């Protein structure tokens, strides 16, 4: 599905150059569930942003479905991103002024999908994540777990083949965290590629492979038995 080759990301301020990612080589197959772990500041989020095409590498190659997108413009990346990649954030990032259904529908608004079809797909995905009875509620009326389920629904409603989750359980208690992880696992079993950044080893265990980062390097890769 994607392959990072000698990928480096450096941030330059006036005086210092900070290397966030240094010669990273990662390959992720279609349908994999990968967890990225590491201490704060190790480059996890930078890596996820680059994979998610929200950021571009300083050097190296990023092959997405065999296409090197490293040098693509923001607009080009945007087109690929909206077709293939869904995001889930630690802080949910739902829009407070929109209802649950509207928040999910937002992901289809930029896909030229007719309104009737949008409604069907939103209803279907809400059923799938078990949030249909909350369709008309505003995010502030939901529990954290419910909000994150809405976010998951929003990430997959466009039939994205890959979900990038940035500490999806970071703001949730254990029970709700569990719920969200099970949902991600289910999605993965249905064929969605999932790349997840997490601090929680137990949640990382849901993944089949864990990549450990330290100071911008991949230090270990471990496969679940």
């Amino acid at each position, binding site marked *: 599905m994607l392959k990072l080759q000698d990928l480096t990301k450096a941030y330059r301020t006036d005086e210092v150059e900070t290397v966030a990612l240094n010669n990273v080589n990662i390959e992720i197959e279609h349908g994999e569930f990968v967890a990225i772990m590491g201490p704060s500041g190790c480059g996890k989020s930078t890596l996820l942003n680059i994979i998610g095409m929200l950021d571009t590498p300083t050097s190296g190659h990023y092959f997405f479905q065999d296409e090197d997108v490293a040098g693509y413009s923001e607009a080009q990346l945007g087109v690929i991103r909206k077709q293939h990649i869904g995001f889930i954030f630690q*802080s949910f990032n739902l829009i407070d002024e929109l209802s649950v259904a509207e928040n999910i529908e937002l*992901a289809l608004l930029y*896909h030229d999908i007719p309104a009737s079809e949008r409604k069907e797909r939103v209803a279907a995905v809400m059923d799938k994540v078990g949030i249909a009875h909350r369709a008309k509620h505003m995010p502030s009326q939901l529990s954290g777990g419910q909000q994150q389920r809405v976010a998951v629904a929003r990430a997959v409603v466009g039939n994205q083949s890959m979900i990038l989750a940035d*500490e999806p359980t970071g703001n949730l208690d254990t029970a709700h965290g569990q719920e969200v992880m099970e949902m991600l696992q289910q999605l993965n079993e249905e064929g969605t590629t999932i790349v997840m950044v997490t601090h929680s080893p137990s949640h990382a265990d849901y993944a089949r492979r864990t990549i450990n980062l330290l100071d911008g390097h991949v230090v270990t890769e471990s496969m679940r038995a």
Partner: protein
Amino acid sequence: MLLNHVSMSFRSIIKNKLYSVINIAGLAVGLAVSILIILFVSHETSFDSTVADHDRVYRLNWESKSSGSRFATFFNPLSPVIADAFPNDVEMVTRITLSERLLNIGENKQYQTISFVDPNFFSMFPYEFYAGDPATALSNLNGAIITQAAADVLFPDELAIGKTITLDGQHDFQITAIISNNKSNSHQISNIFVNMEMLPTVWNDPDIWQRNFSDQLYHYIKLAPNVSADVFAANAHTYISENINQEFGESISFIAQPLSDIHFTTELQNEMSVRDTVTGLSKPARQRSDINIFGFVAILTLVIATFNFINMQIAQSSNRIKEVGVRKVLGANRSQIAAQFIIESTVMSIIALIASLVIVEMFAPFFGTMLGVPLVADQIYSLGFISGLLLVSILVGILSGLYPALFVSGILPAKAIRSRVFEGVGSAKLRAGLVILQFSIAIGLLSATGIVNRQIDFALNKPLGYEPENVITVRLNNDEARDAYNIMHDQLLANPEITAVSRGSVIPTRDLSDGSTYLKEDEGPDFKINTRRVGVSDGYFDSLGMQFAAGRALSEDFLGDVLPSISPDNATVSGGIVLNETAAKQAGWTNANDALGQQIYSVFSFGGTDYRMNLNIVGVVEDAHYSSVRSEPASLSFLMTGGGNNMVIKASDGNLDKATQLVDQVWQQHVPSYPIRRTFLEEDYASFYAVEGRVFRMFIGFAGLAAMIACIGLYGLASFIADRRTKEIGIRKVLGASVLDIVMMLSWELSKLVIIANIIAWPAAWILMNDWLTGFSYRIEMTIMPYLLAGVVAFILAYATTSIRAWAAARINPIYSLKNE
């Protein structure tokens, strides 16, 4: 503490440079525009207010009951008669009349306006005597008082006092006093004054005081306190009817015109010239509605600027939540935070006030020139005006500080420190409301601008009914010239460059003469055709390019056309007459052809003789605008009297220069004693409308500025919204929205406020402009176009302004806006 607040304010202003500059500039420009307009409006409304007890001073007018025409002049000898009859009501009466005379100073000859006054004129009107004694300056009948401006023109580099000026080559006057110039806000325009008792001599008119109903003078009357002007005018009229002439008295009425109304009365006959020929200053009468419109614009501009300022202050405060939180954690209480905000915005608005005064100082002369009014910024620096301005800016400061003071100061410190921007209670709604109002005003002003512009263009470009192009006019202002008319006529016409030469008592752009009332042969004496009479010679209509709706021009080729002069020996005369369309319609001939060949007559009695003119209608000429296009074309009748003090010369195309030379030569040859008084009709016409046009162009500029200020506020709101929605923008981008999608979304959100503003602005502007247009007899039909255009312009401006800000917001990489808190 206060000092600390003020110094904090300055630091905060400096810290947010761009924002502070935009906000202060917006308010400063708004204030400056308002101040400039107020200067203009107060100049115009202060006309003649420097006259002592001006609220008790009136000018006597009379009105013809038959024609409805009202005259600025009053009957030569009658005001002193009235004053004697009502000693308890009248405190003072004084008279003035202006006439252009040839003035000789040594070898130098020039035309100047000489004013004949009663010596107490200087007791009523506040001139300052720089030299000479007010009490005695005119007691010698050959004394003359001149203004400083006249002294500078007539006697440059010389002491004027004691010098001699000669009128018409025969009457010597000695300068006995130098007085201050006419104030720019006085309707008086005279610069050379001599005693009224010289009038019979200089005008060679010994009967002038015997003609009770000849109105050649302006009469000012100061009434005792608590005397009602209307009652007094009625009593005076009754007295004159009963004691002077019953019959004439019944055909007229008297009006006491308040001094302060003179500048605002545009429709009087025989009105005094508004142009000071010595200083060149023109003081055209205004429509009160025009001045009101300007005042209205001043207020609206100030409102827009204030809303704008408030809006920007609220926007800014929402970015300072964190600062407030820190202050609170460090122990600031709510009122201290509130005071901080209020003092800060007050400091800013006072800075804006100072900046606006600088702008006013810089632009007052320019605006003055554009408006044709000497605007002096000095007027501002009166205690009243300055304290008023200060009050307004402090009020604006407090108002705009109040919202953040009330709401932001109340926020919990923990929340304040965490949140990036403040989503205040109703803040967005309040600000949206302000923007809607601001834009309603801006759109209203813009559409008014469009209508004003179209109306002025329409008025200036509408068919005049005559052709001012290539027409030279020469005043036949002396007997030598009048006697030489025929030979000059023949000599000029012999040249191919000149296509027509004629003579008339009135020509377009000059005042119309007295009225004439005609009766129809087949109707009773109650059916009256009231017209203004124009005496013409052969070729008059040709030389002015006037077209006939029916029939033909008066011509010497038809013996019956010529009207013999009327006299006690020849009391019944007959001749041809031409009516204009308005007069023909008034007489009941809606189809011009129906008037042809009809007989009308006019009768009047004078000195015991009954006179009668029998007139045969030979033609109906199309209406022509002799006076302002604002008014209806007058009802006119043309009689072939052969007289008139204006010579009209039409040059063929491209030969105006040659024709002008010929005219000068011929004059030189036949009227050697007098310099020529020559103008081009096209220039007269243009200057007739120049001031009006300019004043309204200025209006357009002001409205444009107001719209621009409104856009600053919109930019402020766009910033606020973009900040508030940073997270949302990030989410949308992650979900696939392009930069363009985001820009369109944000711009639309604000632009729809502008659409709402249109809905408010249109009906209001429609009603106001419809009212303004009723002041014009020839007016444009109101269409939706100016409103649509204003709406579209405002929408585009708003869309562009918000797009700039939205573009910046949309370009932010979502990884920054969606960072975990």
